[in-house]
């Protein structure tokens, strides 16, 4: 597994908010289903002593850490407070920090990610759906019903598009080891490269589906830093330049980061690129068939 498993205790920051409360319920329902620990503590400043779905809430992350063994955190706080939440968790010693929150100013994210790096914490997101290792752990908001356990890792900048791909894989009988949504912002903590390096060390993962989109060039970095067989898909072939396509990071700027040149570079490195999502399962099967 990468980032966590059944034994990982999860903390939710923003536990008493609408989103936090709702997803603590879903994460713990999944934990119960797979026999994992799930969310063991919540944090909302000023709401210490309350409970959410039976999970105790603390005022600070450090208070929660004194009472529980916590390996990961999921953040649901508003954009203005999210960078601070990332830094609080990193400072308290949490290894994996998943930030679901959208619309965080980039300057705040750069600071929080730099701070987390000093504290040796890995930040997933922001503006992401989190991650799910089927049968082990769910940290975030992915709909677990679509997933099935197996040996294909998935890394994606998207949310629902990831669910679409996972759904296609599951229907085709191809299970997943871990699915990570790294986020749709221009600056994110764990990039394709970081997640790919984790997959490389993960005995459960035999191949990877990489789902990118317009903006930046980190897909190529991710696809070329590993020996694992990869199938990729890049969204935004029809995206016009200088328009933000829903994600803050999905923009073709200064003639850079367009889908067609990304696809061309991936193909040049020998990475197969699907033209449609529905082609992905067959291409993954092909990887396993040729044993490459």
């Amino acid at each position, binding site marked *: 597994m990468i980032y966590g498993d059944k034994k990982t205790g999860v903390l939710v920051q923003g536990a008493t908010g609408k989103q936090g409360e709702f997803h603590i319920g879903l994460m713990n329902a999944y934990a119960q289903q797979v026999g994992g620990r799930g969310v063991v503590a919540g944090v909302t400043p000023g709401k210490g002593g309350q409970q959410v779905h039976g999970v105790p809430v603390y005022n600070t992350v450090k208070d929660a850490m004194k009472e529980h063994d916590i390996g990961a955190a999921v953040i649901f706080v508003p954009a203005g407070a999210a960078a601070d939440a990332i830094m609080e968790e990193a400072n308290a010693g949490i290894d994996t920090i998943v930030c679901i929150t959208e619309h965080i100013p980039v300057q705040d994210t750069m600071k929080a990610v730099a701070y987390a790096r000093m504290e040796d914490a890995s930040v997933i997101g922001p503006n992401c759906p989190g991650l799910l290792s089927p049968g082990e752990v769910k940290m975030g908001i992915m709909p677990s019903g679509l997933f099935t356990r197996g040996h294909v890792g998935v890394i994606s900048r*998207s949310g629902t598009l990831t669910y679409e791909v996972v759904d296609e894989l599951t229907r085709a009988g191809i299970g997943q080891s871990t699915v990570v949504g790294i986020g*749709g912002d221009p600056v994110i903590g764990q*990039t394709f490269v970081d997640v790919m390096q984790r997959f490389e060390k993960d005995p459960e993962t035999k191949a990877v589906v990489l789902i990118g989109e317009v903006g930046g060039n980190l897909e190529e*970095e991710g696809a070329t830093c590993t020996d694992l067989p990869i199938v990729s898909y890049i*969204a935004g072939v029809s*995206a016009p330049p200088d328009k933000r396509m*829903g994600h*803050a990071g999905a923009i073709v700027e200064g003639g850079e980061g367009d889908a067609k040149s990304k696809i061309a570079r991936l193909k040049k490195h020998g990475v197969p690129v699907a033209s449609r*999502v529905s082609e992905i399962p067959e291409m993954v099967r092909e990887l396993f068939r040729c044993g490459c």
Partner: protein
Amino acid sequence: MKFREYEAKNVIQAAGIPVPAGFLIRTPDELTPHLAALGDAFVLKAQVDVGGRGKAGGILMADKATGTKVAKELFGKQIKGLPVKEVLAEQKLDIRHEYYLSITVDRSSRQPLILFTEAGGVEIEITAKEHPELIRKVVANPLMKDLPPFLIRELLGNAPKEIGPVINKLYKVFIEKDALLAEINPLVATPNGIFAADAKIIVDDNALGRQGIAVNRDLSEREREAEKHGFSYVELDGRIGVIGNGAGLTMATLDLIEYYGGKAANFLDVGGGAESERVKNAVRLVASVPTVKVIVVNLLGGITKCDEVAKGIIAAEIPQKVIVRLAGTNEAEGRRLLSEKGYEMLDTMDLVVKKAVEVTA
């Protein structure tokens, strides 16, 4: 959101970076009171939101005698299709050398990236392609308020030391103004010192609120309307309206339309939580675009309630055909509601898109 040149120059001047004496005018006549201060020769620069305006005729030289006439000419022009509503009248500089300085967000290192070259000016993009070795680059630690002097020395090389403070001041502007880009090109050396002859600032759309910017000028009226509802919306030029949930899935739907030979009219991401009221507003917004002949709705999510979505589509009561792909909870009920009213609901995104392309062919 992009700042116009005069706005960017006001910002960097307030930060202590010298800019040429200049005046913003909104009619040719407004030039008259400034003629004395502008000196014998000056420059008139159209303030339009497009790049490459110089080559497109948006920058004209003028002098005391011809000033008003040239201003009239510029106000009468269209620059890359945009009318000229504001002109910056600026003192002409005695340029001895042009430098380039920019600060951007580097996705790879997740830090501010600072670029500097002694080969500045309008041909910077060609320099970047053909002589990348001439452009010096450093990344800065975003936790530091100032650039350390060694980084500035690395950037400068043999360039004049007076540029050093300009680099640090622009870095502070970049941080304090929540910029995604802060650029001075050209940064010029004159007998009277260093000046920013042009400046560009792009502010992070997610920071407009705390920067005190109420309206995002870069958005069209319909895009702004969509923003009020919490949708991401982009106008395109085809005939198939597209509504999806999530940016990636919506983009993939657009791409699929292109794959099957069609053209999307827009991109609307309804975001999380597709309640009937949100869906209704989304469908109506897309249907209000005159070129839209058919609408594809592609919603997927474990927790999306299909009956809610169906109710929203029906309540929108629009004249165009709506083709729906829904996956989530209460799928059967959603399908029943839609088919009762004669809407088509198909199982995969490939099927809905193929159908929509057929309808518009």
